[in-house]
């Protein structure tokens, strides 16, 4: 029995220590008690918004302690998370040695289902080494962070890595990049690129650190068959008139509901359209989180859509969201940017992947209520890159060579980063079979110059994800609005301990 007593006494002591700690923490938070509030505080938020935007700084470039080995110089190591860039490089980079890489093109020239050998080479014999880590659960960034940190003392150098718009700023301002000018690209090389892709590819001092082969303006892709059924026409211009602003968009949603359809698939579908049109960035100069009015509008609209049954209650990238884009779906449309249409929607719309059946040819695009952009991939040369000239050539060919970029657009429907080229295509009879013969490039060319990248900050990815997931509980009716906002702040500060709730 004595042992039991001892154990009980021990655990009691632990509990007491715990409650003592809890007590002292209460005292701490009691000090600023008058500013603590539950949920969202409009006044504090407004004050925080007016404090000015958060200004990130560019970190000092990592110093290389070890030089790359001979082996490393014969290899060009590229970090990526999916097949998109690989496909572009294999198909369109002229120095890529298709024979030595045992690369086979589909007979009809279409994407996918290609074969490639175990080792891939450039024509001068340099081996291309892909280091592919999936994007889920932040895996890609974790891997990249770890390996870039060790780059200084490693003799196997990473030459290039790819970043997405959402977290580009984290790397561009970080210590692991080599500026585009240092790699060997001049301003005149990049002159034909869209301005926003250069803003997005620059660090806090405005130095260009990354280049992209694509621009990613967004459009609203809708089903022609449902449009005919409900609005009596599938003409993109007439449908655009029905969706020209958010009030009209909501009215169209009500009409679709009556006819037994959904306007949107899920909660987050319209999020990008609102979040790209904010007045204030996510974080202010005092590291306080600012929730923009436009995001509040998204919350109210999505709540209304959910309560009234205008959406199908799915979440972005969920299997049921993908299914909604197929022929069994009852959803009118999806907000998608350039890559989304050829890379995602086209795949989901066909009942048998790659078979051109199902909804192939039954989608069309229109501008939608507001201009926005979504995603995009940038190429970054890493500090310590020991194949500078080859990286420079890849960047030059794939992002500045107008002929190659136009080939990419022809082959993949991707909207490429050449202003003059895209404008040419916009005025020709270029058409997309998947979109029923529509020239979507013309619409993208109109939307692309409207993209504003100035409100994007280093916290966007984490805060967007936290905001969407916290608000979902409010949409499904599990919590009230205040609790949802509390959960958002909580999750945001867990991710970024340096941030604060406004007024706290």
């Amino acid at each position, binding site marked *: 029995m004595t042992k039991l007593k001892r154990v009980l006494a021990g655990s009691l002591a632990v509990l007491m220590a715990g409650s003592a700690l809890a007590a002292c*923490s209460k005292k701490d938070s009691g000090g600023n008690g008058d500013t603590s509030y539950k949920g969202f505080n409009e006044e504090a938020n407004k004050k925080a918004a007016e404090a000015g935007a958060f200004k990130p700084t560019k970190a000092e470039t990592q110093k290389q302690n070890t030089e790359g080995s001979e082996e490393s110089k014969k290899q060009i190591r590229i970090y990526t998370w999916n097949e998109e860039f690989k496909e572009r490089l294999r198909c369109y980079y002229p120095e890529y040695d298709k024979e030595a890489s045992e690369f086979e093109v589909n007979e009809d020239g279409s994407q996918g289902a290609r074969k490639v050998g175990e080792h891939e080479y450039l024509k001068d014999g340099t081996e291309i080494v892909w280091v592919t880590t999936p994007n889920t659960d932040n895996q890609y960034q974790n891997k990249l962070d770890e390996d870039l940190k060790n780059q200084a003392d490693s003799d196997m150098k990473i030459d290039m890595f790819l970043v997405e718009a959402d977290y580009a700023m984290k790397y561009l301002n970080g210590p692991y990049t080599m500026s585009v000018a240092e790699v060997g690209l001049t301003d005149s090389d990049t002159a034909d690129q869209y301005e926003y892709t250069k803003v997005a590819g620059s660090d806090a001092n405005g130095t260009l650190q990354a280049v992209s082969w694509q621009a990613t303006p967004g459009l609203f892709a809708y089903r022609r068959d449902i449009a005919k059924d409900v609005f009596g026409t599938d003409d993109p211009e007439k449908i655009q008139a029905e969706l020209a602003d958010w009030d009209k968009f909501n009215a169209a949603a009500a009409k679709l509901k009556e006819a037994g359809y959904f306007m949107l698939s899920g909660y987050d579908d319209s999020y990008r359209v609102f979040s790209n049109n904010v007045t204030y960035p996510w974080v202010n100069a005092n590291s306080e989180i600012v929730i923009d009015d436009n995001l509040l509008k998204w919350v109210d609209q999505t709540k209304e859509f959910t309560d009234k049954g205008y959406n199908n209650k799915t979440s972005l990238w969920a299997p049921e969201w993908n299914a909604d884009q197929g022929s069994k779906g009852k959803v009118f449309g999806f907000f998608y940017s350039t890559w989304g249409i050829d890379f995602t929607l086209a795949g989901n719309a066909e009942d048998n992947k790659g078979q051109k059946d199902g909804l192939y040819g039954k989608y069309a695009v229109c501008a939608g209520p507001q201009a926005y952009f979504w995603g995009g991939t940038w190429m970054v040369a890493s500090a310590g890159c020991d194949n500078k000239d080859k990286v420079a050539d890849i960047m030059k060919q794939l992002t500045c060579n107008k002929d190659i970029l136009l080939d990419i657009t022809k082959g993949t429907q991707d909207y490429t980063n050449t202003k003059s080229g895209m404008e040419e295509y916009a005025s020709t009879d270029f058409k997309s079979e998947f979109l029923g013969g529509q020239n979507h490039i013309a619409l993208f060319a109109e939307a692309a110059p409207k993209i504003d990248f100035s409100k994007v900050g280093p916290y966007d990815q984490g805060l967007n994800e936290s905001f969407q997931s916290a608000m979902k509980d409010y949409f499904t009716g599990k919590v009230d609005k205040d609790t949802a906002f509390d959960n958002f702040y909580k999750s945001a500060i867990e991710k*970024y301990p340096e941030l604060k709730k406004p007024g706290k």
Partner: protein
Amino acid sequence: MMVKRKSISYAKWGYIFIIPFFVVFIIFNLVPLVSTFYNSFFENYIAQGYMQIGPNWVGMDNYSTLFSPDTELSKYLGNTFVLWLLGFIPQIFFSLLFASWFTDLRLKLKTGAYKVIFYLPNVIMAAAMGMLFFTLFSPNGPINDIYMKITGAAEPIRYFDNVWTQRSVIAIINFLMWYGNTTIMLMAAINGIDTSLYESAQIDGANPTQTFWKITIPLIRPILLYVLITSLIGGLQMYDVPQIITKNGENVNRTSMTLVMYLQKHLFSKNYGMAGALSVILFIIAGVLSMLVFFFVQERDPKAKKKKGGNK
């Protein structure tokens, strides 16, 4: 002294043979453990994705943040306990039932194949089980397909958007993964009971219910306690299944977020300070539970000794 020196001592070999264990233990267990305690007193994380903050000595600040009412640590502890209990109750019920059936003298079941089948779910990686059930119960998964076909309902049941359906799915997975393990352990315990006890009870006219409650249960009590407490410690570390089912635990107002899932939240900013403090708290809770195990396992044989020495 002279006599002692003459006799050959083999004791040193014993110490030499256990050196490898202690070396491994010190390097891989003790050092990380101590450094966790050490780290928990520092502010140490990465801001904006690349900027190292700290380590700065902050004393007990991390702990006071964890115990502040805003953090709701008790909520996560409660979730962990509820999720564990929901899985453990059916687990112990079915394990006892199967163990007593399989060891029943009169039923004479051939149990080899069953043991393997019951144990199989445990062989699958927990994350894979999570993915499987996530797909099964998703709004357009087979469970909802069947449900909508039978009832003709237009809306699927959204299992992961409700507190108790979400928790139940997690509990089902945990139950399926662990009942086989428990069954085998309880069977071993029951097989260890002298069969003559059952025979004499039957001769005296005891029915199976009576032998179960009066003979089996009291005699396997130590193993039952062992199962209970190891399962409790395992439950305290529950992570992979709810993580996958609830998509990072933020679903439904964080009602299925366990302590370790909360710990994982600090990985995003590599927040060693907060993660260290939380680990220390987990260590203390697990330590108290482990001491209980130790105590109950020890209790078995010293009974005789105690009688000799008298009770204090």
